[in-house]
C-alpha cells in the first residue's frame, strides 16, 4: 500500500504540492489527470524519491520513503517507473537494457537476468527485438522496452509519468494496450496521463489535480459523469 | 635598478625590450600565415566540396600529408628543400610558406564543413530566385556557413599562432627562441618563461573565450 499524508513540495519559492493526502491499495489502478504544472508528475517523483519533500510523509509498504535511514535504492526496487521520455539506454541492446538492473542491483546471475529479461520482453510483445539497439526501435517500442525494464525488477507498484505524451499518435495505442494488460493482471498502478479514455476505461479511481491541490478523487464514472469541482468541469470540457 | 628586481640579477630592462620585439615577430609571422592560409584554405575547401575528381584525388591526400606530419619536420624539410629547388629563403620566408600551407590544410576542412552546413535546400531556394552560382556563394553560403564554422576557424587560427613558436627551430628569433636565448644568458628560466607564457595566454585566452561564448549564444 502507498500512503501519502499532508505532502508539501517546494521548488525554491514555488509551492508545487500543497498538502496531498492519498492512499493507493494493492491491485488498484489510479489515474491522475490535470493540466500541466498542476504538480501531478512531481507527485510521482516524490513517491519514487527522485525529488525531496519539505513536509509530510510518503509510506510505501510500511517504509517511510523520505526518512533518513531509508535505503532509497531498495525502496525504488519496489516501484517501477516509466517516464514521458522513454530513456532507453542507447548503448545496450533491448535484452541488455532489461537485464542490467536485475543483474547489478539484485545480483542475479547473468543467465538468470537474461531469462527474466526475455520473459518480460515477451510480456510487452518485443520478443522479436531482443538484440536490437534502441535506435532501431520506434518510440512505442522503446516505451514498451522501458516498461519491460521496470517490470524486470518485479515491482509491487508501477508509476507511469505521461508515458504516451511524447509518442506519435499512431504509436500511443500499443503502449496503452500494454498498460491495460498490466492492469488486468492486477498490477498496482499510478498513471499520470492525458489519455482520458484510458483513465475512464481502465482505472479504478481517478484523481484530478489543480495548482498543487488534489481537487477531487473518485470513481471514473463520478469524475467524468458528475464532477464536483468547477476546475474539474472546466478541465474536462477543454480536453474533450 | 629597482630593489624589487635585484633578485633577478642579470635580467634588465633591455631584455624586456628584446622579448617585446620577439613577441612582435611572433605576432607578425602568425598574422601573415593565418591570413594567407585562410584565403588559400577557403579556396581548397570550396574545391573539395565541389568534389571534382581531380581535387578529390590530388588535393585531399596532399592536404592530409600536412596534417599527418609534425610541423617541425615540415619546417626543417622545407627549409632544406628550398635551396635544392634553387630558392633562397630565409627562416622567416620558409616559416611563412610552411605555416601558410599548414593553416590552409586545416582551414580547408573547416571551410568545407561550413559549406556543407548551409544545406542544399536553402541554396536551391536561393538559386530558384535567379541568383547566380557566385552570388549564391557570396551572399548565402559565405555568411551562413562562415558563421557556422567561425568558432572552429578561431580554434585553427589560435593553434597556428601557438605553433608559430616552432619556426624557432630554423633560427627565427620569435618569442620562445628569444626566451631561450635569454635563459641561457641570465639563468633565470622561471621568470622569463612566465613572461613568455603570459604573453601567449593573454593573446589566446580572451579570443578563445570570445569564440566559445559566440558558439554558445549561436547554439540557442
Amino acid at each position, binding site marked *: 500500500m502507498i500512503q501519502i499524508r499532508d505532502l508539501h513540495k517546494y521548488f525554491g519559492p514555488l509551492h508545487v504540492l500543497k498538502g496531498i493526502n492519498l492512499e493507493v491499495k494493492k491491485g488498484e489502478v489510479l489515474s491522475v489527470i490535470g493540466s500541466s504544472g498542476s504538480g501531478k508528475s512531481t507527485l510521482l517523483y516524490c513517491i519514487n524519491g527522485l525529488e525531496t519533500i519539505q513536509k509530510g510523509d510518503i509510506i510505501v509498504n510500511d517504509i517511510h520513503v523520505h526518512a533518513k535511514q531509508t535505503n532509497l535504492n*531498495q525502496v525504488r526496487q519496489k516501484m517501477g517507473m516509466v517516464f514521458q521520455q522513454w530513456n532507453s539506454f542507447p548503448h545496450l541492446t533491448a535484452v541488455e537494457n532489461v537485464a542490467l538492473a536485475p543483474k547489478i542491483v539484485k545480483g542475479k546471475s547473468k543467465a538468470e537476468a537474461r531469462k527474466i529479461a526475455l520473459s518480460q520482453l515477451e510480456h510487452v510483445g518485443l520478443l522479436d527485438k531482443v538484440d536490437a539497439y534502441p535506435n532501431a526501435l520506434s518510440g512505442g517500442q522503446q516505451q514498451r522496452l522501458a516498461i519491460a525494464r521496470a517490470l524486470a525488477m518485479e515491482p509491487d507498484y508501477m508509476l507511469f509519468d505521461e508515458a504516451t505524451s511524447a509518442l506519435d499518435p499512431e504509436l500511443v495505442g500499443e503502449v496503452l494496450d500494454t498498460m491495460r494488460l498490466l492492469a488486468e493482471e492486477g498490477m498496482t498502478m499510478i498513471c499520470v496521463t492525458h489519455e482520458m479514455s484510458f483513465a475512464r476505461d481502465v482505472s479504478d479511481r481517478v484523481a484530478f489535480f489543480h495548482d498543487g491541490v488534489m481537487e477531487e478523487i473518485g470513481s471514473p464514472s463520478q469524475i467524468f459523469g458528475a464532477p464536483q469541482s468547477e476546475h474539474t468541469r472546466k478541465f474536462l470540457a477543454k480536453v474533450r | 635598478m629597482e630593489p624589487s628586481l635585484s633578485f633577478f640579477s642579470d635580467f634588465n630592462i633591455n631584455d624586456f625590450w628584446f622579448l617585446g620585439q620577439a613577441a612582435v615577430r611572433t605576432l607578425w609571422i602568425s598574422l601573415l600565415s593565418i591570413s594567407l592560409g585562410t584565403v588559400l584554405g577557403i579556396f581548397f575547401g570550396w574545391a573539395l566540396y565541389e568534389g571534382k575528381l581531380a581535387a578529390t584525388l590530388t588535393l585531399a591526400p596532399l592536404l592530409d600529408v600536412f596534417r599527418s606530419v609534425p610541423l617541425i619536420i615540415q619546417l626543417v624539410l622545407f627549409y632544406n628543400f628550398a635551396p635544392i629547388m634553387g630558392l633562397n629563403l630565409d627562416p622567416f620566408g620558409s616559416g611563412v610558406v610552411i605555416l601558410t600551407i599548414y593553416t590552409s590544410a586545416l582551414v580547408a576542412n573547416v571551410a568545407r564543413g561550413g559549406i556543407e552546413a548551409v544545406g542544399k535546400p536553402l541554396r536551391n531556394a536561393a538559386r530558384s530566385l535567379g541568383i547566380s552560382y557566385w552570388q549564391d556563394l557570396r551572399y548565402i553560403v559565405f555568411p551562413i556557413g562562415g558563421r557556422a564554422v567561425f568558432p572552429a576557424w578561431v580554434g585553427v587560427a589560435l593553434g597556428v599562432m601557438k605553433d608559430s613558436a616552432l619556426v624557432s627551430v630554423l633560427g627565427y628569433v620569435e618569442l620562445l627562441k628569444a626566451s631561450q636565448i635569454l635563459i641561457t644568458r641570465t639563468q633565470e628560466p622561471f621568470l622569463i618563461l612566465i613572461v613568455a607564457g603570459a604573453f*601567449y595566454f593573454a593573446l589566446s585566452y580572451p579570443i578563445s573565450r570570445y569564440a566559445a561564448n559566440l558558439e554558445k549564444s549561436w547554439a540557442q
Partner: protein
Amino acid sequence: MFDYNFHWRPVLKTLPDLLDAALLTLEVAILAMLIGIVIGLCLALIRLHMKGSLYWFATSWVELARNTPALFQLFFFGFGLGAFGLHLSPYLIVLTALSFNCAGYLAENFRGGFLAIPETQMRSARSLGMTAWQAYTRIVIPQVFRIVYHPITNQIVWCVLMSSLGMLVGFRELSGETQFFASRTFRIFEYFAATAVIYYVIVKLILVASRILAARLFRY
C-alpha cells in the same frame, strides 16, 4: 634545377635505428595519452561538480594547457622547473609536458561528453534502484566514451605529432634520432623526408586501428 645529389644510403643503413626511435615515439605518446585520459577525466568531473579551490585548480590547468604553445609547456617542464632545482630527464620532460597538454584538451572533451548525456538517463537508472556509482559507471560513462571516442583518436594523433618536439630538449625519439643522424651525416633533407614518411605511416595506422576498434565497440 636539381643539381643536388640525393644520398639515401645512409638513411637506409640507419633505418632500423629510426624505427626503434619510432617505437619510442609511440610509447611516450600512448603513455601520455593514458595519463592524460585519467587526469582529464578527473579535471572534467571536478569542473562539472565542484566549487572552490579544486575548481580553480582544474580550470587553470585546462586553460593553461589550451592557451599556451606546446613548446612553451615543454620548455617549462624542461628549464622552468630547473629554477627549483628540479631537473627531469628528456624522457620525463616530454612525458610530463605531453600528459599535461593532453589532460587539458581531453578534459574539455570529457566535459562536453558528460553535458551531452541527458539528465533523464541518470534519473531512469536511479529509478531502477541503481546506486549513483552504478548509474555512472554502467549508464553514463559508456555513453560519454562513445561521444569522446573520435576526439580521443584525434588527440592520440596530435600527441604523436607533438612528441616530435622532444628533439628540442635532447630526447632521442623519432625526431631527435633523425636530427642526430642528420647532423652527423649532413643528409638533412633525406633523413627528414624519411622521417616524415614514417610519421605519416604511424598516423595512418592509428586512424585505421581506431576505425577497426570503433566498428567492434560501437554497434549502435
